[in-house]
């Protein structure tokens, strides 16, 4: 296990940035572990959420932005709701994800592709086109066989439309995305 030089490796600017974007104070965390205890995703995480908070206090940017956990948080709000120090932990997880995206870290590619594809669909049609979303996702990830078992279950129900539900204001929605990208530059 590596030895961490807690003085030299602490990225104070990173801490400040997370605090500013999340509007949370990371020093309020006293490491009780309640977030990890309640998190339904702990089994799938590489770093449990209470340790995400600790690494954040210690300014360990690289380890955090490259971890899987931040892509696997479903924002179920269990941590935020039960934190004794009233820290919005889920929001911090969200912010770390934003930063990872901006800086080009992707540790759970399929998750990111799914989300991106979802938003592409919204940008294009104004609403999510579920069938199109799945098709594009499969094309991008090459995961053709995944969920093949579900096809026979869902298709006969006639719920999945093969045509998108276009809206009149779809260009207005596309504009939102466009203006948002402009703010990011």
């Amino acid at each position, binding site marked *: 296990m590596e030895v961490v030089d807690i003085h030299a490796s602490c990225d104070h600017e990173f801490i400040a940035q997370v605090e500013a974007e999340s509007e949370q104070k990371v020093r309020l965390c*006293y490491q*009780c*572990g*309640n*977030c990890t*205890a*309640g998190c339904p995703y702990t089994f799938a995480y590489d770093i449990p959420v209470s340790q995400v908070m600790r690494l954040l206090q210690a300014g360990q940017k690289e380890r955090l932005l490259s971890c899987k956990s931040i892509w696997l948080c479903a924002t179920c709000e269990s941590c935020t709701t039960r*934190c*004794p*120090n009233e820290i919005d932990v889920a929001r911090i997880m969200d912010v770390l994800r934003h930063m990872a995206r901006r800086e080009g870290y992707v540790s759970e590619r399929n998750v990111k592709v799914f989300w991106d594809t979802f938003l592409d669909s919204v940008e294009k049609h104004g609403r999510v086109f579920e069938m199109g979303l799945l098709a594009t996702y499969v094309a991008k990830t090459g995961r053709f066989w995944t969920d093949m078992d579900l096809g026979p279950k869902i298709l006969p129900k006639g719920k999945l439309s093969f045509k998108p539900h276009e809206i009149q204001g779809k260009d207005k929605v596309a504009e939102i995305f466009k203006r948002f990208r402009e703010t990011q530059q």
Partner: protein
Amino acid sequence: MKIGVFICHCGSNIGGTVDAAKVAEAARAFPDVVFTSDTMYACSEPGQDGIIQAIKDHQLDGVVVSSCTPRMHEPTFRRTVERAGLNRFMFEMANIREHVSWIGKDKEANTNKAVELTGIAVEKLRQDQPLFAKQFDINKRVMIIGGGVAGIQAALDCADGDREVVLVERESTIGGKMAKLDKTFPTVDCSSCILGPKMVDVAQHPKIQLYAMSEVEEIGGYVGNFEVKIKRKAPYVNWELCTGCGLCMEKCPSKKSKDRFNEQVGTTTAINIPFPQAIPKKAVIDPEFCIKLTKGKCGICAKVCPTKAIVFDQQEEIVSESVGAIVAATGYDLFDISKYGEYGGGRLPDVITGMQYERLLSASGPTGGHVKRPSDGKEPKTIVFVQCVGSRDKSVDRPYCSGFCCMYTAKQAILTKDHIPDSTSYVFYMDIRAPGKMYDEFTRRAMEEYGTQYVRGRVSMIYPKGDKLLVRGADTLMGTQVEVEADLVVLAAGAEAAVGAPHLAEKLRISYDKYGFFMESHPKLRPVETNTAGVYLAGACQGPKDIPASVAQGSAAAAKVLALFAKDKLENDPMISSVDIKRCVGCGKCVQVCPFGAIKEVDFRGEPKAEVIETVCQGCGLCTATCPQGAIQLSHFTDNQILAEVNALCQL
């Protein structure tokens, strides 16, 4: 007038962010100031000697010290100037530490502010007059409110000091929380074996008058002469006749009453003596559950009572007592565990509080000391203890540490192993707070000798799984989520202020913090005194405390009372109101407004005039602000003095 000004550095406390020498220099320009100096520690012996020397050398008539808050050292410096031959009211203080150096880092702004605060002190001093105290008689009886272990200790110590004690207890028996405990840490000695004899002493002591099932209704007066109205609630039993034989309890058909003594583990009879060692050992009817009182029928207890003590139409009554001092020892209450919805307390029968568990462990408890879980009466084999339930948790507005939960949890884990040798106990903790004598050794024993499994992490949720409870928590040292299937979960509920504590504080005219705990005069140096003379604190009403600390405070409060009663006369505070009889028009507004009845109307050459009863006036100044003529003035805080301060500030 010749004024001397002393600017204190307080080491670096003031000197660090205020240029004390510069303040001293600037103060020389103030009117009547003939001497200034800056000093390292004004309150130290050389500091005080320096002030005395300057008074003598420069024939000063008044002194200003700019240092810490007057709430801390005003009495100190008043004594200093008195030693130099001045009247102790020819002294003013400017607070340049708490109000200046500690709250700002800008040295220029701080220095400037310190100069101005010194300036207003000088202006006020220029209007000061020598004041002299009056003496008055003292009533040497004491009232103690609350009959828990702290109140019992205070009562016994005062009574042993040969003073008459009035002990007021809300419940039908004294003993408080300690009486409910099975054993006590760190010695694991039996709670009722050490408390029981003290309770008997209270009952037997000729100097102690006990009012059980009573509450303080109203408090008037002031140190040395309080008038208290006590409400004696109706037990529906004539206690003079009741022998505590318990026959009524045996026959009472209403068996679903709330068993408050047993923390509602099970139910009890509508007529009840809470426990065999109760003092006084008298029966009480719970009107909510008594069939006779709710439906008009029954009356079996009245038929079987051998002394005919049952009185269904008994009314509460008010009695008055005169005392010279009051000790508040009203204790604490437990945090309501149902506020944590994720733990299921109040919803799941086998999620209980530590105090409920204490009753399950107790030989005189509802299960006769056999640990049986409430849902099905089975003996639990896996017990999970969860600490910090209502402690150190901002989200439930309880950010403070309750202090004793770590210890009682360790004790309960040890007792569990004694009761059920093949059981396993898990303790979820955040930190172990065990700083008392033999305390840490005790928690270590729970782990080392009794095999208690300590898990460092909080519990996030508890839910039923089959007939077990699934406890999901974290082990932060392992860095993972953990689960335990438990038979019983004990939540270490924290302490909070007793129900109604703020209301009592208001009657006592003492301060309380935002959680309802009573405020002491000084957290370190005056821990059992309050800002109201003659009112003292003992035990957990001031903040969470364990038994040793509560007993120590009970004795400390008693010592303060005995010291007060060692004097035959008390001196009043001479900062009181006086009437300028020439300006008084006899309108009587001051008489109406005075909260203490300290102003009376007198006849002066055929005209009504106001007159202040000097030993009754407490110096609030309400009358001064009310008088349309400015005829009644509060000494040391006269209109002229306050306006002089305003003027000084607005001219600077």
